[in-house]
């Protein structure tokens, strides 16, 4: 994404907000933690973007594929749609375990 990486200029500027003293206590450790927790955050976002983007991509390029019956007589369009809704909730639960942003 480039948003979280410091080398591209897209540093998470909230590190310097005064109510986050822990983020400034050390020069290297916080950056490492920052990088790791941001990595998890962007990984979760990327996972959802892949699932959502994949759905849109199939709808645009191969809409007939969405008519394929996949589970219990239900087609791929319905299954994928429900899966996106459930995945959003699963990611939300996973995000609860992430440390605070910035």
């Amino acid at each position, binding site marked *: 994404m480039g*948003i*979280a990486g410091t080398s591209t*200029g*897209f*540093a*998470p*500027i*909230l590190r310097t*907000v005064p*109510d986050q003293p822990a983020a400034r206590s050390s020069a290297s450790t916080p950056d490492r933690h920052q990088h790791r927790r941001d990595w998890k*955050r*962007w990984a*979760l*976002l990327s996972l*959802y973007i892949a699932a*959502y983007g994949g*759905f*849109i991509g199939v*709808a*645009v390029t191969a*809409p007939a594929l*969405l*008519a394929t*019956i996949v589970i*219990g*007589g*239900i*087609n791929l*369009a*319905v299954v994928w*749609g*429900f899966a*996106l*809704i*459930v995945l*959003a*909730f699963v*990611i*939300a*639960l996973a*995000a*609860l375990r992430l440390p*605070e*942003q*910035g």
Partner: protein
Amino acid sequence: MLANTTPTDWVSVGVFGAFTVAVLVLSSLLGRRASSAKGYFAAHGQIGWFVNGIAFAGDYLSAASFLGICGLIAFWGYDGFLYSIGYLAGWIVALLVVAEPIRRLGKYTFADALNARFGSRLVTLAAAVSTLLVSLFYLIPQMVGAGALIKPLLGLPSWVGVGLVGVVVTVIVTTAGMVSTTWVQFIKGGLLLSLCAILAALILGRGFEVRAPGPAREAPARNVGSVVALPAWAIMEGPPGETANFAVDPDGLVRTEGARTGPLGPIDFLRVFSASDVAAWRTVSAKDDTGAVHSMATPETIHGDVLLQPGNSPTFRGLRSGSILDRVDFVSLMLALFLGTASLPHILIRYYTVSDVRSARLSTVVGIGAIGSFYILTLYLGLGAMTGGALDTSDSNMSAPLLARSFGSVLFALISSVAFFTVLGTVSGLVLAGSGAVARDLVITVLGRTPDDHAQVRIARIAALALGTCAMILGLLFKDLNASFLVGWAFNIAASANLPALLMALFWKRATKEGIATAIIVGLSSSLVWVLLSKDAFEKVYGLPGADAWMPFSQPALVTIPLGAVAGILVSLATRPRTQQV
């Protein structure tokens, strides 16, 4: 008109009256807590995360979600569900990208967070104008929904519904601010979810029954919509008192009237629908020699499996047409839905009502759970309306309330009242966001005046009154459009105007105040102009031929979000202070 033919249902009137009085009493009681600016705009930051999470659902599940999506599914099948998918997806961006920084940086309005680094009047002015315009665009479908509801509920014309919402909301917002708005949203969100779950259970319990769709008729036609053939393997029982012994056609379908499935599970419901023939109603309009427009509603038999794929509605038909531009239009809309949620001012300011960052995150998770559950239900509600013989071909927004009416007048009264409550809640949130932008951003920051705490609240209340009036007028002008379709436009404008600026302000160290303001102005103006000159606007708003439209496709987000971002980045780089130029 329906309004002239619907007798007044006194059960509905009673339930509706009770709901309205309850909301006003609640607002009056909670109004005492809103005398200060922090109380009025942010409920003192003391709302619990669970209450705020359900209030998120209350804010978000607007007329577009309940009335609009159910209506689209009832007429076009899966295409309406695409909105459900997109609306929910946007919450992932809100949760993972903006929720925590917004809570940490902001105070009362969207501009607070955006401007935390810069303290710039220009940024505040741009953000305030964006908040006002986005809120106004989002208000239109809510008012349209209110007008649609009042017709079957009280047998009154739609302008009464629009007026009633305007008056009640103005009372709520001007008396009590964010505290009462939050509790109204909480109660409404909980009620909406509960009643929709009950309605979905009743739909599954009823199953499907073969009925003749009836002849084509001059629109508006009511009480239509049916399954005209069921797969033989799905038939479980005959009409009451008869032995189940139906003729099976060579294609394996049963077309005998009265054949029914009996209760179905959630998966079986979709499986049987998918294998059935359904009468979907289409309306065709034409002018006669005198110039008068006549509309004819006609049943069209479509296989269920086709209805459970995207591409049936006029908005998404391009997915099957082979036209590149139609497909780009689809991608653009889905992008706007994905990025629009995290850009809606009335959603973002709800993060200020909780005490800390952890509560902001927890409330988002609760919101996603509640909203996601609701969106799964929309597919069952929409398909239930399509096949339950309770459609009004003249107004897709009425599908869900009329579906409830097919289960009895009490459920209809409850659902309609909660739907009206839904409109009230969402409009309250929007008016609050807009009035905050006027009182805090325009008056204090831009005009340079600093009224005392009580004066700020007074200015916000006057602004709420003005916004409510504008919303009523616009709601009447756009009353014939589907609510969810209109919200799609609001998402396009919100995502184009606010998201690039928000991401730059939160995550890019080199962003400057000029760059942020440029991103907002370019995104806002380009998306607004695009929408107003699009094919959809020509056909559905101006009544002109779509071929005369100036824009190649109707949904602008795919172009205008990057446009705002690029403009913001270029201006930021050009206006960077020399000390930063390493």
